[in-house]
Structures are given as structure tokens and as C-alpha cells.
């Protein structure tokens, strides 16, 4: 047997972005895979130690382009704990609505990335059309389309618009119509089923052991969701189910994401009905950062996102404004290292199947090396 080593990515349509893979091949079959991270080199974490805590919030959104609000939310939760504030009721609902829209936008972008490698190119433009509606909604609420900086320690940055309820419900109706079309045209399509069924199986016990989170964990049949477990922000006040798969293959993971889009739409519909009409939206915080420690854990679109912030009285810059150390934990590192290796070692994955497996894990490369 002659083994062949081949680089896949970063300039490859099947690679998810600024990461590469070193594949060890026997003919078509992949025997081993090694992840080669991108060029961020933990620069974010180092840069944040030189900057004010409110500037760090703006930087934190850049860690995951596709799902920026959940990174901000976990940063904000950690900061809230250091400042010792509990955000006002209205802000809790606003955070929930923004976070769910972010999940919706992220899942739609994932569908665009995923439909390409499985040769359903018609579905990519569909997903982008639906995402455009969500981005327009973000522009209307936060004034930005991609990075919003809307969630802020102590509450949310701006007050919500007056016609939020009507406008949001209109947007949701349009998006839901498009997602229903995609369900029939793409997710239930026999060609897609044949392409993704039984590819990249992951058992429930292995998913937990290897550190998988989010739709990858739930696709394997483990109903674990931080939103439900910790009931942060307004998630304790709305009613929603946790979709989960059965076999843990690529198709199950895709279907979990599809059903999560409906769940997100349902959560936003309830939240805009329940949100208090009046009341404060943000507590003003002092500029000086008190010493303390905060851990913010949220369920992002890809899985568990954690921010650990340590603030001490020792300030290297001499100003009481910079946090001492910030650490982010993204879900993608586990998915592309331990989980991907496990799948490749235990199953016959060919080069042609590889983009399907990687796509079904929904990687966000910057959160590996941030």
C-alpha cells in the first residue's frame, strides 16, 4: 500500500475557509486528517489585553464572522458578572431576539456553504436570499448588517424601535416561507438524502466524550442545550423544544439545523409578544473595570461558546480599563480535531465525501486560532 499525503485547502471549494487539512490517503480513502489552523495566532486575545473593555467588545464580534452576536453575548455575560449587574428586563428580551436572529443568519449561511459541496447549487442562492431579509432586519435594529455591536454590558446599546413587533413579524413570515421552500426543495430532496445519509456517523457517547457541542452533539441524539440548561436572558420565559437527531450522520446534523431555524423563529415570535413596552434598556456602567472574574457561556449557532475574563488590580498599562486576560472557547476546535479524526478513523471516508462531513460540522475557522 502506498500512502499519499495531500493538502486540502485553504484555497479549495471544499475547505471551509482559512484552514487547511493534511490528508493521508490510500487511493481515494482518507486514513488520517490533520488540521492546519489559519493565521490569527491568538492575536485577538493578546490585542484585547492592550485595549479598553468596551473596545474589546467590538473586537470580540470579529472572532466568528457568521455568528458575531453570540460571541458578544458570552463576552457581555462575563462582563456583567465582573461589574455585578443584572440587565433590565427589556434588554434581556432584546438580547434573546438578536441572538436568535444571529443563529438564523448563521444557519442560512451554513446552508449556502453546505449546499455547494453536495452539488445543490440552486439552494445556495435561496439561502442567501433568506439571509438578506435577516441582515436587513439587523440594519433596521442595530444600524449594521454583519457586525452589530448591539449587545452591550449592562443591557443593549440602543433602544429598540417603536414598530419592532409588526416589522419583526413581517420579516419572520417572509423568512419562514423561504425556509419551508428550502425544506421541500433541498432538505427532503432524495438526491441530498442519498448524498448525506450514513456519512460521518457519530455515536452519542463518542460525541460527549470528544467534546462536540451544539447541532453536532444534538444530531447524535443528545438533547443538551445551554439555552435550556442555564435559561439565561429570556430563554426561561419562552417555550421551545430541542431538536435532536437519531443516527448522528451528516443528514441528521443538517436536519437538526433546519428544525432549529423553525425553533428560532418560534422563540422570536414569542419574545416580541412578551417584551415590555416601556422601561430601561441599559444600565450605565462606570468606565473603570473592577477586579473580578467572569465566565460567560452561551449556546451559539455552532455549539457552546465560553468567555473567561480575569480582571485584576494589577494593570500593566497603568489604567484601570483593560482586562488582565480574556480567553475564548469556540466550538469549532473540537469539531475539526477530535471529532473529525474520530469519524475518519472509524469510517470509510473518501475525498469526495470529505466536504460533506466537514460541511455538516459547520466549522467557523477563526474560532480555532482567533
Amino acid at each position, binding site marked *: 500500500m502506498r500512502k499519499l499525503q495531500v493538502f486540502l485547502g485553504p484555497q479549495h471549494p471544499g475547505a471551509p475557509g482559512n484552514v487547511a487539512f493534511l490528508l493521508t490517503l490510500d487511493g481515494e480513502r482518507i486514513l488520517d486528517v490533520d488540521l*492546519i*489552523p489559519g*493565521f490569527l*495566532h*491568538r492575536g485577538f*486575545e*493578546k490585542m484585547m489585553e*492592550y485595549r479598553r473593555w468596551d473596545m474589546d467588545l467590538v473586537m470580540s464580534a470579529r472572532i466568528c464572522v457568521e455568528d458575531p452576536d453570540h460571541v458578544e453575548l*458570552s463576552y457581555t*455575560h*462575563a462582563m*456583567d*458578572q465582573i461589574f455585578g449587574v*443584572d440587565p433590565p428586563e427589556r434588554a434581556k428580551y432584546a438580547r434573546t431576539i438578536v441572538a436568535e436572529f444571529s443563529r438564523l443568519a448563521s444557519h442560512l449561511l451554513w446552508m449556502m456553504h453546505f449546499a455547494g459541496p453536495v452539488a445543490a447549487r440552486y439552494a445556495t442562492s435561496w439561502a442567501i436570499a433568506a439571509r438578506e431579509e435577516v441582515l436587513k432586519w439587523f440594519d433596521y435594529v442595530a444600524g449594521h448588517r454583519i457586525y452589530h455591536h448591539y449587545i452591550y454590558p449592562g443591557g443593549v446599546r440602543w433602544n429598540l424601535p417603536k414598530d419592532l413587533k409588526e416589522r419583526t413579524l413581517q420579516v419572520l413570515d417572509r423568512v419562514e416561507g423561504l425556509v419551508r421552500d428550502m425544506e421541500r426543495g433541498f432538505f427532503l430532496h432524495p438526491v441530498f438524502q442519498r448524498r448525506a445519509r450514513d456519512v460521518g456517523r457519530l455515536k452519542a457517547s463518542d460525541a*460527549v*466524550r*470528544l*467534546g462536540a*457541542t451544539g447541532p453536532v452533539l444534538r444530531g447524535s441524539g*443528545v438533547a*443538551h442545550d*445551554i439555552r435550556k*440548561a*442555564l435559561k*439565561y436572558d429570556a430563554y426561561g420565559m419562552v417555550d421551545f423544544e430541542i431538536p435532536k437527531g437519531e443516527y448522528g450522520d451528516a443528514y441528521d446534523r443538517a436536519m437538526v439545523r433546519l428544525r432549529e431555524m423553525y425553533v428560532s423563529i418560534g422563540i422570536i415570535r414569542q419574545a416580541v409578544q412578551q417584551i415590555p413596552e416601556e422601561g430601561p434598556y441599559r444600565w450605565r456602567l462606570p468606565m473603570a473595570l473592577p477586579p473580578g*472574574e*467572569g*465566565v*460567560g*457561556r*452561551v449556546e451559539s449557532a455552532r455549539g*457552546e461558546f*465560553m468567555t*473567561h475574563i*480575569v480582571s485584576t488590580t*494589577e494593570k*500593566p498599562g497603568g489604567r484601570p480599563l483593560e482586562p*488582565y*486576560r480574556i*480567553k475564548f*472557547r469556540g466550538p469549532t*476546535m*473540537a469539531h475539526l*480535531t*477530535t471529532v473529525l479524526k474520530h469519524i475518519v478513523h472509524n469510517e470509510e471516508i473518501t475525498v469526495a465525501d470529505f466536504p460533506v462531513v466537514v460541511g455538516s460540522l459547520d466549522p467557523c475557522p477563526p474560532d*480555532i*486560532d482567533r
Partner: protein
Amino acid sequence: MKGADTGRRIEVEVEPSQLRERLRRALEEGYDHFIGINVVDYPRAGVMEVYYFVESVQRGGELLVVKLRVPRENPALDSVSDIYPLAEYQEIEGHEFFGLDFRGNGSLRKWILDENWEGPPPLRKDVDTRKFVLETYYGGQRYERPKQEKSLQEVVE
């Protein structure tokens, strides 16, 4: 139990020699989901604090934080990658960014910094990465934009 909101956690402090035993017991107690390792460097006190975050799926996401201190001069501790597989990669990270030595982890190497950084572990507090990069890669010169001679209006005309 410590912390509030999403940061509620059980925090235990152990000696470096008890780490493996404590985490093995944690796995038996149901903390089956490894989240990550964080390292905080304190050059003035001469120590590094290492935090292990482990979560329990069966107990509704309960978080356990195992915390320990290692001396900065000889930062060596035992690897737990055989107890939690994901720890293997988190330990590589601690090795390349803080210079920690995880005994028993066979794959310690430059991974994220591979071929792109020849120097001290960059996330240590006493390493000024900006100064290091300017001196090593830019010859001590700051990269400056060339001064614009003409205004944009003149260029267009």
C-alpha cells in the same frame, strides 16, 4: 458554588500532583464533557494559574472548574489527554502560547504558531509582542503609510 448567571460554577483548587486524580474522579462523578483549559500568567508573583473547565451533560450543564498554580520557572504538569481526548489540543495550545510542559502528552509541538513565530511564548504577560515583531520582522521600523502628496480632488482631476 461560585459566580452568578451563566458563570455559576463549582471551583476547586488542587495541587499540581493531584490534578489527574481529581479529574479522573470528576469523570466518574459525571463531568463527561471537556470544555477547555485557560492559563493566566502572573510574572510578579512568579506563578501561572491553570484552569480546567469541565461540564456535565447529564447534570444539566453544571460546570466544574479545577484550578491550580504552577511556578513560572518550571511550568510542568501532568497531561490529562488520556482522560479527556479534547485536552490534547488544548494542551498543545498551552504549550506553544505559555511554554507549559504537559508531561505525557506526546504531541506537544508548534501547531497554531507553526512556521510563523520564532520567539518566546507570545501570550506570556512579560512578552511584548508588538516590540518583538517590530524588531524581528520589521527591522525596528514602524510601518508607515507614504505621505499623500496630492489631495484626492487633485488626483481625480
